[in-house]
Every structure is written in C-alpha cells, then in structure tokens.
C-alpha cells in the first residue's frame, strides 16, 4: 500500500507527516497570542475566514516556549473538527513510501517518542514520521 508523506524540517531536523490529514501549506499570517493556553500553542490566526490554532512544532517536541513568526510555513491539518497550523521552518517535498513506518521508539528522545509513529526511508535518509494529533494534544503526558 502506497502512502504519501509530506517531508518538512524544523529546528534542523527532518520529519514526515502522512499527507492524508494535511489540508494545505500556507505562510503564517499574523499570529495572535493566546495567554494561558497550552504551551505549544503559539496563538490563533485567520485563514480564509476560519480561525486556526497555530502550533509551534518545535515547542511541542522539546517544550520550549512557543513562538511563530509571520511568514513561517504552516502545515494546515484538520484534527477532530478543528483546524491547526503546524509551524515548521521549511517544507521540502511530498514523497511516496511503500513500507509502513518502522517502530524505533526506544531510540527516540522522550519528546519525539510521544509524537512519532516510526521511521521511514526517504531518498536514502531515515526520517521520523510524526502524528499530528499527538502534536496538538495537551502537554499533560509530557509533564508527568
């Protein structure tokens, strides 16, 4: 079974995301900060008369304070009826992969372990596949 993946880069690390869940990739408009929201939430932004929640992908992984700049690439995903923009540094390409992601959980750092589904081979490199819905879920599991 062929599966399409979007390969993107944040904080110098490449990762892949199943293309099924992805609506579009847009440059970030003005991001309005939301005080007291979950730590990875950088804020909200307007996208074609919808309000999307902007997630700092790096902050979701390593727990740093969320910050997304205008113009940064947002991968727009729809998760349980809410639109999210996952901020990344760069979006590379869409690629096909025949194999299912290989589980390598023990090898990942905790932040990655929480959000990753495994590893795939893209153009000779190993790339972690991440699960967008884990990315947006509350930090409770990470804090514990």
């Amino acid at each position: 079974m062929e599966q399409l993946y979007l390969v993107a880069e944040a904080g110098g690390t490449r990762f892949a995301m199943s293309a099924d869940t992805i609506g579009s990739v847009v440059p970030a408009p003005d991001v309005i900060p939301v005080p007291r929201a979950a730590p990875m939430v950088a804020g909200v932004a307007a996208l074609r008369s919808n309000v999307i929640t902007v997630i700092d992908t790096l902050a979701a992984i390593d727990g740093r304070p969320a910050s997304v700049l205008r113009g940064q690439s947002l991968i727009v995903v729809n998760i349980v009826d809410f639109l999210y923009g996952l901020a990344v540094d760069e979006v590379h390409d869409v690629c096909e992969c025949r194999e299912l992601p290989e589980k390598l959980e023990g090898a990942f750092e905790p932040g990655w372990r929480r959000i990753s589904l495994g590893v795939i081979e893209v153009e000779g490199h190993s790339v972690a596949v991440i699960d967008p819905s884990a990315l947006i879920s509350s930090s409770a599991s990470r804090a514990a």
Partner: protein
Amino acid sequence: MDDLLAEFIAETRETLGTISGEIVAWEANPKDSRRLDDVFRFVHTVKGSCGFLDLTHLQRVSHEAENALSDLRDGKREPTPALVSAILAIIDRIGEIVDALELGEEIDEAIDGLLIAALTATEDDSDMFPVASQSVAERRNPARSIRVPLELLDRLMSGVSDLVLSRNELSRQLRRTKSDDQVETAFDRMSSCVAEMRDAITWARMQRIESLFAALPRLVRDLSAELGKSVVLEIDGADVELDREMIEMLRDPLTHIVRNALDHGIEGPEERHEAGKTRDGVLRISAHQSGNQIQIVIADDGRGIDQKKLGDRAVESGNLSADAVKTMDGRELLDLVFQPGLSTADAVSTVSGRGVGMDVVRSNVERIGGTIEIESVLGEGTKLALFVPLTLTIIPALIFGVRNGYYAIPRSNIDEIVSLNRGRARMEKVGGTEFAIIRESRVPVIRLGRMLEGENPEGDTPESRDDRHLVIVRSNRRERYAIMVSAVYNHEELVVKPAAPGIMGAGIYAGTALPDNGLPLLLLDVAGLASAAGIRLSLSRNTKDDRHEIEQISAAPEALIFGDRDGRRRAIRMALVERIIDADVSQIAERAGTLRLVWNDETLPVVTCSPLPETGTVRLLRLSDGNAAIAYAIESGTADVGPLPETFEPALRPGRIAGVAVVDGSPIELLDAHYLFSEFSGNAGRRPWSASSQKPRCLVIGGDDLWRHELLVPLIEMAGYDITFDATEDSDLVIDASDADYVSSELQDNVVRLTADPSPGKGRFYRYDRTAIVDALNARLKAKG
C-alpha cells in the same frame, strides 16, 4: 395533537416512497421474506398510529392490508399478481388519505370497499377489480414540509456563519480599494441576501421548548413515586421557541433543578398536611420570551431554603468566615447555593444531593450566555429563574484592548463601563485583593493585562495609561467584578466558534471569532475568568453602611447621556441602546423616503436633529425595542452612563423629547423612544382599528405620569384601544399599574396588573415587559371577539 398528526403524515409519506419498490421487488421474488417483513411493518405501523390518532377509516383500510400480508407471511396465501396489485392499491390509497388529511379535505370512503374486496378476492375472480396503479402517476404533490437530519441543519448554519465571515472579509477588502458604486450596490444586495439567509436558517433551527419539557411529566411521576411524594406538575409556555442547540444545553440543568425541587423542596404528604398545605405539592415550570431572551421559571411550593442553615454550612465547609456570613443579607445567603459543595440536604438520597450541585447548573447555564437567579421563602417554596439568549452562535459582544491584545466579552455579561480617567471610580487594596469603589459599592478587580501576560516588563505603575477602563461584568446578579482594560472599542455581533482544546483548556475562553478587522479574537468566559482569578462571591460585596442607598441606585434604570448634534445634552434609556456605531457618511443616504444607514447586514432608519456633514464619520446609537431598530446620530464627544433621573418635567407636546431633568446642575432632555420608533421604524404595523370608532376603551390606573403617558399609552393604542384615565368612565379593560391592587378582584378578567418590580409575582407583568403586556392586551381583545 396537531403536532403528532403532522409527524405521522411526514413519517408515513417518507416511508411510502420506498415501500412500493420493496413490494415490487418482493413480488419478483416471493421467497424474499425480508422485503415482505418491511411492507408488513409499514402497514402495521400505520395501523397502530391510526388507532392512536383516532383515524378509524384509515385504520380499517390498513388493517385489511395487514391481514392479507400476515396470511402471505404465514404461507396461507400465495402472492398472486392480483393480490400484490391489491396490496399496492391499498398502499397508494394510504398515501391519498394522508394527503387528504394534511390538506384537511374530505375523504371519500366509498372506493375503499372495492379495494378491500380486491384483497379478499380469490384467484378465480382476479379480473373483477382492475389493477389500480395509475393513481401513482397522478398523486398530488402537497409536501409542504420535509424531514431534514439535524446534522444537515447544523451544516447549513455553520455554512451561513462562514458566509457572514466571508462577507465581512469582502467588505474589508472593498473598503481598501476605491469605491465603485456598482460594486457597492451589488455588495449591498449580497449583504442583504446573506442576512436574510441567516435569519431563515436561525428560524429553521428553532424548536419549541416543548421538546425540552416533554420528558418532565415522566420524570416527575417516577421521582415522586420513588420518594413517596405526591406532586402536580404544571407546564406553561411550551410553545416558546428556542434554538435547538440551546434546548440540548438546557436539558441537564433543567433535569437537575426538577430533581432538586422534588427531593429537597416539596415535602411528603404528611409533612405538608401538618404545615397546612395541600397534600399534593405543586411544581410549576413556565417559559416566556422577553426581547431576545427566554425566561424559564421553575417554582415549587415546598419547604423553601433555610438561609441560616446555608450560611452555617458555608462556614462549616470553610468557604466563608463566620463574620462574613453574619453580614450577609437573605439574597446573598441564598446565592450561596451556587457555591460548589454546599447543600442543605441533611442526607444524600438516590435522587440528588451527591455533590453535583447547583454550581454545575449555574456554570452550564452561564456557558450558554445565560444567567440564573434564585428566590426562596422558608416554608413557602423556591423559585429559580433561568434567562438564556435565543441563539448560541451569534453573540453581541464588546471588544476591548488589553495592552497590545484584543478580547471580547458577551454583551449580556456587561453591567457598565467606567472610565478611571474621570475619577468615577477609585482603587483600593484590601488584603491583597484590589477593589474598585464605584458609587460607594466595592467591586473586586481583575487586572487582565497582568493576569494574562504577567507583570509589565517596563515596570509600569498600576495607575499607568495601560489600565484606563473598568468593565463591570456579572456572571450572576450578585457576582459582579471589574475587568481592568486599556481601551474599549466597539460592539460587534460575533460569530463565535469553539476554540481548540489546547485553548479551551485554559478555562478562561468561551471561543474564537473573526471580527470586521480580520484578526482573530478570543471571547472571554466571564465565570471562568472569575474562578481563574480566584474571585469568590464573598468578596463581591457592597460596603456596609450605605448598602440601602446602593440598592436603590442599582434598581433605578440607567440612561446614556450624550451630546446631540444640535449641541444639547440629551439622555436615552440605556436599555434601548444596543451599541454605538461609527459610520462613514457615505453609508448613509436617503432611501425609500427617509435617511438610512447601511450597516453590516441591515439598513437602519437614521434620526438626526441637524443635517449630517458631507464627509467624515458620524457616530450613531443603534436603538432597538426588541424588534425594530433605528440609528440616532449623536456628536462624537463623550457619552456617559448614569442613573436615569427620577423626575422629569414632561414636554408640552408629544415629540422627540419626552421631558427635561436637571443632572449635575445642567438640563438634560430625555428622548421619547416610543415616539422615535413610531415615527421612524417604519414597520409600526397599525391595526385597522384606527378607522373605526368602535374601539374598546382601556382605563389606566396608577403608575407615574411620565411612564404611563410616554411608554404605556402608545403600547395600548397600538393594540387597538382608546385610553382613559378617568376611573368613573365605563371601560372594557383596566390596566392597574398602582402596585397596590387598586382595582378589587371582582373585575379579575378585565384587569391587567403591572408592576415596577422586574420579577413580578403571579398575575402581574413587569411594566417594561413589552411582549407580555402586548400579548395580554391582544388576548383580551380577541376574547371580546
């Protein structure tokens, strides 16, 4: 009953469409017992419903078809073409009868004998009845209502909300480019279409509150049996309509309140007998629309709530100090029932009293933008009143700024806005909590900027320019607090959508919206904000000495005092002012004989007392009486909210000005809102009564002069009455506004009693409850014929 019939018709017609196909498919394959079962079930359902609805004729026809089908199922008869045709004919006939029922037509019963004969005919005489299938082709098409899945309605609603948002965005883009008349005309047209569609969808989603009340008789029956009590349930106003989403949201709170009333409120028969009450307890539930709010009242005649006990419990549980409880009055003590973990129930029962308390009820009601109030007299009963908005999705809200951010609060939560610059409030710090002293009442303050973003990095002092306004909000009549904000912008109708879990988890937001400026906006949850800031009811108290005076002030209606375009200071009742609009003059033009403002999705008649400038912006007040709206042009200077002066010198002639009062040494003219609406709102549909001299006469007794002349009389006249104030004259109807039962009770039927108390007792109406008064007048007019 009509509803049941309509439902039966819709349901039968829907099944009919599919059933003919089933029966033909079954005829082609007689071994297919599943299809036969489907047909049988349909006929059986029709028969059953007919018995219930007392449609004996239809019941007989379907009964015969059911018999034949039953024989087929049991293998007693063979599915011959003649028999199948006869069954089809009966099914078509059911369709015809259903159509006739819907149109209220006479049903010709003569041909049914033949149809039934065809069913019972043996194969030999199959030619005695020609196969009836032509009626399918000529079936009338009277379907005036169809059934639509709720999901589709929800999708339509969210689609229309998106449409409104896109329209707003388009309007923003248009404003940036140079204006082109043709484009603007087209855009205006689109705007009005969108508005119309929004209304239609909102209407489509309206549901009678009956569906909320329908489960209550059973609940009351089961509970009273379980508790060994005898309770009579009285339901009133089941035809009030409400957004169906609101109905769902109210289901749990209402059930909880009813459980409480039965378990803790109403006593057992013996106890009631000893207390001198009837053995049967009474639970009254009523719904009632006033303006764009629905009021639901749940009242029992049980033992009431022991306020002292409530206070003691609050002290025991550590929620309040004994001293604090001592200083609280009855109302404040009663409001303690909304505190988490407080109950006067001595024992936990299977029905209620298990921790899920009134605090949850209250937060559920507040989540949908409603409020809840409680009244109780020990030994006499408890009354809970819920006020909820008509619809959830579009909320009028105030937008304000905090440091560099924007937020919004539902307008229904806002009491008033006080500017700190003008010294109308002063700040005080007691025990680590900040209070604002506003007209001698002490209100706890949340510094929103500090709460949301922490201490200002520049180390600004509290009195710095950042915090210049106090927005006084309440989540309940008694739980008031102030939010300190940097700037107050405008009122806007927001399409509010839920925010993502990561944002809602903060507990202080109610949702997100996209206002006209195109930047997302967060709607604050007033109750959540208070609990996040740790404000407790006990802190929100008036200073002791002058409490009496304060109550008077807060009971007085408020007025907006502004500079009018001719330079005079004028006032208008605050309740009529919906929002302040700053509009470009180009949005105002003469259309259909009067000045009109095109604003968002509507056109408003504009009232101005001096010509408008050629260019620039004009500030307008959007006034609304609940139905119609007009815009009143004012000077863009300052506008203050203050108590409405109690005495007015009435104007000599009726006109735009109702009277004049002196406030702080200078004269203020009060606008006559009834006059403005009757002159300018355009759709003041006067009844044909005015042509006839045979108008019934209405006598008005009591009530202060200004009010009865300026506000009450136009209402009565519009309803089609002549007015008299002379008690010696004959009259068809008496309006008693004296608050003292001036009219003796012999005239009960012809008396409408009004009171200045906003929560009137039984048999009275609040004197500004326009809808109720007009309804009462119309009802009595109709009763007269």
